[in-house]
């Protein structure tokens, strides 16, 4: 098989090799390409380039001492290109769905790319689709990407606070508590992300937006906490102990289950509660914005956990154990910071009047009831029988998250 290409005045020092490569591409090894051109160093350059790429110059061409390019140069295609790619394979299909098992040897290659064999395998821990996937992940990622908001402009930071000092202290305490929870909720998807095979692209993207969401939440809750000019509130040892058990969760699904299904699920009610009783527009804004993001996190956690349980019913046992394990680990801790609980009551009460406090207390009791109902509903969706869902919901940490 023969081909020709004319480089005109182009040299290999100016991109001419692209034309040579293009002309060689369709030829089989051993095929011949005649190169013509006017660049004065064409022959010298081609000789060196061919040697480096495993091609040969035809014998009559090779022995010619002419330095110019008047005589066409004939290249015999070598085998190196074919040998390099002969055992390459596609890393699944770009559009998805992702493969059942992501090959660690695909490494960081784009899903659907033709992957040259060799190179270091990726050290990702999660390579099985069912253990990370949910069919809703691509849609959730698209929604997340479309819903990113700017903390600087999404909240009206200049709105008048006009909040009694003691109510404001309650808000500051709640913000302090929210920040430490959001920090845990940022670190967990980031950690899952680092061990996820990038073949599960949409999950990777979704976790990245989730971490970015939490970064914004940390920012706006901190900013609201400092808005009235005072110091932040307290952080209890028991609350931090509760959160830290989430960081230690080794499995993708149980981490996602404990954080997003039970923790963030419970937080939906909490954020809605603070939003409804917000004494100022800034508090209302920051909780509304966070609530919208958290709903996506919960949706992924629930869908993924349900997806895995559909393929492996016995996984319900693993999930149950993770709740029991966490409960046992936290048995001797106080759980929720009492100042957080009291702040919720005061926030809902709006004043220190005994009748108002009673209303506040009852509102928080209703909140706890709603939280429990929400958890049971999600647990039932995942596949737990109602009685077991009730039992597990009751074992959930007193710290909400």
């Amino acid at each position, binding site marked *: 098989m023969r081909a020709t290409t004319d480089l005109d005045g182009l*040299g*290999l*020092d100016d991109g001419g090799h692209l034309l040579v490569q293009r002309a060689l591409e369709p030829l089989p090894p051993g095929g011949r390409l005649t190169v013509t051109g006017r660049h004065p*160093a064409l022959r010298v350059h081609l000789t060196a380039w061919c*040697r480096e790429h495993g091609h040969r110059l035809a014998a009559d061409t090779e022995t010619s001492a002419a330095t110019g390019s008047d005589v066409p140069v004939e290249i015999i295609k070598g085998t*190196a290109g074919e*040998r*390099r790619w002969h055992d390459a394979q596609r890393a699944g299909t770009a559009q998805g769905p992702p493969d059942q098992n992501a090959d660690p040897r695909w490494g960081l290659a784009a899903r659907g790319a033709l992957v040259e064999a*060799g190179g270091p395998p990726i050290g990702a821990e999660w390579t099985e689709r069912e253990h990370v996937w949910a069919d809703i992940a691509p849609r959730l990622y698209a929604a997340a990407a479309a819903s990113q908001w700017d903390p600087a402009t999404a909240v009206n930071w200049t709105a008048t606070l006009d909040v009694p000092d003691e109510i404001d202290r309650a808000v500051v305490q709640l913000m302090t508590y929210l920040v430490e929870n959001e920090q845990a909720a940022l670190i967990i998807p980031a950690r899952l992300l680092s061990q996820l095979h990038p073949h599960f692209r949409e999950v990777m993207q979704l976790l990245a937006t989730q971490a970015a969401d939490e970064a914004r939440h940390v920012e706006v809750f901190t900013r609201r906490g400092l808005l009235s000019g005072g110091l932040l509130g307290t952080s209890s040892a028991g609350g931090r102990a509760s959160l830290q058990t989430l960081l230690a969760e080794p499995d993708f699904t149980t981490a996602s289950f404990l954080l997003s299904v039970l923790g963030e699920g419970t937080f939906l009610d909490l954020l809605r509660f603070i939003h409804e009783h917000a004494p100022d527009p800034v508090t209302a804004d920051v909780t509304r914005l966070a609530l919208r993001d958290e709903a996506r996190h919960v949706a992924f956690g629930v869908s993924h956990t349900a997806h895995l349980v559909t393929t492996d019913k016995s996984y319900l046992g693993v999930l149950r154990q993770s709740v029991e394990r966490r409960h046992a680990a936290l048995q001797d801790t106080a759980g929720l910071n009492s100042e957080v609980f009291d702040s919720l009551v005061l926030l809902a009460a709006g004043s220190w009047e005994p009748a108002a406090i009673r209303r506040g207390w009852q509102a928080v009791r209703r909140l706890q009831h709603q939280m429990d109902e929400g958890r049971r509903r999600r647990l039932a969706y995942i596949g737990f029988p109602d009685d077991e869902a009730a039992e597990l919901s009751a074992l959930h940490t007193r710290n909400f998250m």
Partner: protein
Amino acid sequence: MTGSVSVQSSVSRQGLVLGAVAYDPKVVTIWDGFRAWLRGPGGLDFDYVLYSNYERQVEDLVAGRVDVAWNSPLAWVRARRLATARGVTLTPVTMRDTDRDLRSVVAVRADSPVGSLTDLRGRTVGTGAVDSPQSTLLPLSLLRAAGLRPTARGGGADVQVRRFDIGVGLHGDHIGGERDAARALFGADPVDAACVIDSNLLLFAREGVLPSGSVRVLAQTPPYDHCTMTAGPSADDTLTKRFGELLLGMDYGDQDLRPLLDLEGLTQWLPPRLEGYAQLERAVDEAGFYDAEGTIRASDYRP
């Protein structure tokens, strides 16, 4: 100075020990990788040692302190001379596909009035290190063939040689001297011509050291061959044969070997051939670099 090479009986050892010159840190990666492959899938009792320069490697090869040596073309020339003088047999084993039919070029600025080699009379030529076959010994031989008398030290010279002695002892494996020679075409007090190997002419153009269209190739050497794997007197024949077979069998399609072959700059090992070194043998004689017995005679060579 290193003329008194004594041929000693080789130390009793098993397997095959190769000498290679550490001209770049990648040499460790390459030979560690080859060692693992040769010993693993290859099943060959193989090890390697590294040298800081080719002269000691060649002396050790001929003395039987290493069994095979990954020789530069100049190292082959010296090894052959030392071995012949001492009645010792060397066996070429393999060479890379990229070691065949190289050419060096003499390049001038595109707008230079120099139109032929003889026009260089009275002018200055930049070369690589004193021991670089491709950018010093061979191109200067080309100048001599054109009737010129190039030298770095005056004394009857009609072409002044400005040498860029980087990596002396590495026989031109270090690219620095050659790059500086090319750069000197355009520096302050520029040289009139620079000697580089064809592949570096292209490389320097792509690096921007010699921008496209900035130079013209005045002349080029006939084709010559480069490195060669050489077995010395201590190498066991069976092991040497097996070593050669294993190298020749290295497949560029093998994903474990390919990165090593890429680093070493080849796509396949080929059987050796010796006719490609005649040009360098002549150049060495003309320059008085080694004598017929392989003694170093170049007075300004300090590897």
